[in-house]
């Protein structure tokens, strides 16, 4: 098995599988976040459900492992690939032959990583270790995550960072979604079109979905 993970295709397999796992996580994350639009109680109860659900307790370390594998193996492959052309071309024209996101996955990934660190320190660390206020919903004490999140989403530069993060993520997925299937060999001439369309729709949903939330709160703060 060691020769499998030493080979380029074996390393790519890990990037692909962890990528697909993260794609599923994003859908869950967005679903929970959309409860923000339904008000304080809905979101707080949804966040409480996620924080206390035993299945999520098991998935949380897997998620951390997924991020770790995806980041380390793609960085490893990217740096190895940089050494394959010591003498660069004087003139390169790839505008017609490949998409910009496909050529800049590492740049997009790095930007998303910076966003992830900011995002975790803004919310996750505060909800996990911070001094949060609690609200009593029918006898159950629930963390008031709503106030924490919406308090940030009325500050214009937070909104810019979160919308930018969502757009980078959407661009990363635009190539990443169908690329993950190609790497697993789950592709052919017919499925390629289907996967590209599905991946595009999914990327738009993720980018738009995560952008709408901070935009909704900042626009609301101006109106009220």
């Amino acid at each position, binding site marked *: *098995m060691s020769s499998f993970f030493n080979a*380029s295709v074996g390393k790519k*397999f890990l990037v692909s599988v962890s990528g697909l796992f993260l794609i599923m996580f994003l859908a869950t994350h967005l679903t929970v976040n959309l409860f923000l639009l339904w008000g304080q109680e809905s979101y707080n109860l949804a966040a409480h459900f996620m924080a206390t659900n035993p299945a999520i307790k098991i998935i949380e370390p897997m998620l951390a492992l997924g991020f770790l594998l995806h980041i380390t193996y793609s960085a490893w492959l990217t740096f190895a690939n940089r050494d394959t*052309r010591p003498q660069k071309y004087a*003139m390169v024209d*790839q505008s017609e032959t*490949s998409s910009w996101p496909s050529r800049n996955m590492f740049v997009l990934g790095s930007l998303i990583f910076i966003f992830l660190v900011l995002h975790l320190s803004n919310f996750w660390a505060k909800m996990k270790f911070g001094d949060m206020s609690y609200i009593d919903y029918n006898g159950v004490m629930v963390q008031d995550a709503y106030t924490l999140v919406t308090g940030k989403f009325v500050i214009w530069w937070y909104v810019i960072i979160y919308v930018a993060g969502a757009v980078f993520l959407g661009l990363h997925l635009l190539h990443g979604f169908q690329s993950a299937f190609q790497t697993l*060999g789950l592709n052919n001439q017919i499925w390629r079109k289907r996967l590209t369309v599905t991946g595009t729709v999914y990327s738009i949903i993720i980018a738009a979905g995560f952008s709408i939330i901070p935009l909704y709160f900042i626009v609301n703060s101006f109106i009220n």
Partner: protein
Amino acid sequence: MEIKLKIWRQKDARSQGSFVDYNLSGVSGDMSFLEMLDFLNKTLIESGDEPVAFEHDCREGICGSCSLYINGRPHGPGDLVTTCELRMTRFKDGDTIVIEPWRAKSFPVIRDLIADRSAFDKIMEAGGFISVGTGSAPEANSIPVTKEDSDEAFDAATCIGCGACVAACKNSSAMLFVAAKVSHLTLLPQGHAESAKRAQSMVAKMDELGFGSCTNTGACEAECPKGISLAHIARLNREFLKAGFRG
């Protein structure tokens, strides 16, 4: 027409190369790209200069010898053409044309526009063959092969091994070449028996020779003069993963 050429000149593998500018007048649109270079070399020889070294053989797009990176693209502008099939009508009077050799660590430049592509031969030696006994020529109809498989195997077999995929890839990956060879053997009964092992050996050799890994940008497919599809890379990945999971 008159064109300006910016051509990579390099004495040998150990020398540092550099671009040299040439002005060439009297170029006709009827010339092929290689005939234009022949014409340039004629003028260089007549003036006592060293002619530009470039590879060529059949000049009809089937041998895979010609391998020039023209204005930022392998085999120049246009789809599904090799350098020898490229016509000067593609260019206008006064154009500047930048000509470089394939650039990749695994394809070292040995002189001017010639890169050593013997790494492809080494990949073929690692598994691009059938070693199971296939007996003498069998009765053709006794081997069931569907039309779809036969067509797809043939499409893969049209790879001429020119290396444009490596030249086009931002990672200098040889996956399209390896995939074409694995596909055309895997799809047919004689080659099918060893398909997983073959994928494993050829990928291992490709990695060992310093080619990069595939990030599915699709630039190779877009630049391939034979239109080899990325679907073959998916098949190679499938065969490789099968071999890996079998242990």
